[in-house]
């Protein structure tokens, strides 16, 4: 009987021949990702009553959520985390400025094919783009993983999402995944593992595959995955010396659903406030006035995202009374964008460049909105209050759409600017 990617990887980690959906397994993750919430997790860890972290080598801690600290409270939180890191001898620690955890982990060789990664962040499925099984967990269970080195997981049912057709100009992986979320619903893949496959996915860059897996969280998925190939191997070259074993679904695996999408006729997509599945083609919302345009985050803060934005904005000037925020996902991305002249193009066009981190996405600092304002963002969430103000509205789209809209000051179809 064929097994899905999730079944194979969880069976291997549990030391079993095979596992069935619904079965609970106790497994030892290869990596435990935590971020600014590490201090809170450390506090729970101490409540458990264990002195030392069970397997410090699996801990990867990235300060990214509110960096640099916005208030004394945030600064104290970071200070507590640095102390914990030192006290426990945790070597994989990335301080303020390195970038967003979901970009830093792969860059530093911690997200590898066949790995089981758990993280105290809901967008942990991003690492599925490297052929890992990566799931978000809560703080208490992160503390429990620190104490015991293991975790309970339920083997999920799986969807196979096959993307076919020719991707039209001005349409990107963000549009594809927004469309899929609109189709399946915000809970359409609740507790499922979603395997993204098909010729369009095979053609995609690693960065574009990361968008799919990142946004799997917004359809409720436990994990999203793209199986590794030559692109994955080449991307990882020079980033790790660790041993890893690639895992692939069996061709005769049993899926709860196999869903095919043909993207040949797909329009750029926009998620309207206040849910990610509130989807329309961009043509239906074009012309809506925006106050802020935001390109960045763990969804769309990579070199290819800024490259397309620069292509649209080069030699032009953003609309009056519109703010454009640029947030590179990591130091590596920022350096590459600087070297390419992309940052200069964007700043000349009127953009504000923020330091690598989560920035405005979660509303704690940098680019917080005022009542009645509208932001068009490349992030993954548009919930009420998400960017710090519950009387503000957030629309989600691709980097090209956000760049085009920054030029016009209203939601604009990027196909007219490419």
């Amino acid at each position, binding site marked *: 009987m064929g097994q899905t990617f999730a079944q194979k990887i969880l069976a291997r980690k549990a030391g079993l021949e095979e596992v069935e959906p619904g079965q609970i397994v106790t497994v030892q993750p290869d990596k435990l990702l935590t971020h600014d919430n590490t201090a809170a997790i450390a506090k729970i860890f101490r409540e*458990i009553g264990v002195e030392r972290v069970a397997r410090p080598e699996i801990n990867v801690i990235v300060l990214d959520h509110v960096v640099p600290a916005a208030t004394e409270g945030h600064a104290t939180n970071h200070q507590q985390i640095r102390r914990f890191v030192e006290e426990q001898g945790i070597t994989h620690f990335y301080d303020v400025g390195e970038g967003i955890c979901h970009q830093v982990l792969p860059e530093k060789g911690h997200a590898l094919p066949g790995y089981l990664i758990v993280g105290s962040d809901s967008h942990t499925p991003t690492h599925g783009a490297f052929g890992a099984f990566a799931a978000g967990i809560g703080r208490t269970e992160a503390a429990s993983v620190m104490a015991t080195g293991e975790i309970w997981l339920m083997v999920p049912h799986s969807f196979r999402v096959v993307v076919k057709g020719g991707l039209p100009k001005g349409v990107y992986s963000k549009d594809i995944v927004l469309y899929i979320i609109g189709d399946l619903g915000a809970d359409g893949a609740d507790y499922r593992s979603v395997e993204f496959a098909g010729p369009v996915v095979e053609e995609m860059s690693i960065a574009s595959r990361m968008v799919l897996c990142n946004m799997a969280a917004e359809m409720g998925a436990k994990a999203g995955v793209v199986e590794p190939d030559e692109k994955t191997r080449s991307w990882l070259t020079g980033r790790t010396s660790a041993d890893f074993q690639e895992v692939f679904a069996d061709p005769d695996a049993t899926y709860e659903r196999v869903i095919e999408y043909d993207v040949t006729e797909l329009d750029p997509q926009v998620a309207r406030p206040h849910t990610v599945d509130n989807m329309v083609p961009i043509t239906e919302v074009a012309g809506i006035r925006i106050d802020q345009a935001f390109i960045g985050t763990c969804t769309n803060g990579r070199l290819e995202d800024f490259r397309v934005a620069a292509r649209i904005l080069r030699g032009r000037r953003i609309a009056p009374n519109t703010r454009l925020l640029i947030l590179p996902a990591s130091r590596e991305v920022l350096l590459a964008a600087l070297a390419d002249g992309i940052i200069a193009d964007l700043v000349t066009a009127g953009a504000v460049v923020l330091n690598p981190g989560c920035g405005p996405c979660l509303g704690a600092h940098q680019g917080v909105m005022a009542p009645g304002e509208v932001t068009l963002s490349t992030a993954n969430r548009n*919930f009420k209050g998400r960017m710090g103000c519950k009387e503000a509205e957030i629309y989600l789209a691709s980097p090209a759409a956000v760049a085009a809209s920054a030029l016009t000051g209203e939601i604009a179809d990027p196909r007219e600017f490419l």
Partner: protein
Amino acid sequence: MWKTVHTGRVWKYGDDINTDVIYPGKYTYTDLPPEEMAEHALEDLDPEFASNVRPGDIIVAGRNFGCGSSREQAVTCLKHAGVGALVAKSFARIYFRNAINQGLPIIQSDAVEGVESGEEITVDFSVGKVSTPRGDYSFPPLSEFVMGILEDGGLIPHVRRKLGID
């Protein structure tokens, strides 16, 4: 202490109640004591909740309760506000895990169809049934493993017991 039967007054909500409205992100990365977290519970959804909730009250909702961020405060704030159980048509995965790991009883049931805010319902784990003013709704039993965590009062006491600390 684990109770098999929970009776409580209902706060009823709709579908897709996300963790940003249960516990706003702006409070997430400062270390607030649980009692203070409780004061912000459901702040952006129902401003009446935090000041009027009584111990043992039950939240009843539609589909996909707790979607969005993995922030565990979205469970902690409700638990410390006194909420005795959560009943929804479905829960977002991480939220469901967080509730179990904090020892807050969580039930997947369509009971939202049989009750209005302010009315009383009873959740009975021994028979897998939610009793509402307009009928009974059965729910599938939680696995033995998960019940073990709930009965121990959450993952922390569960791990302490497993590691032989208690």
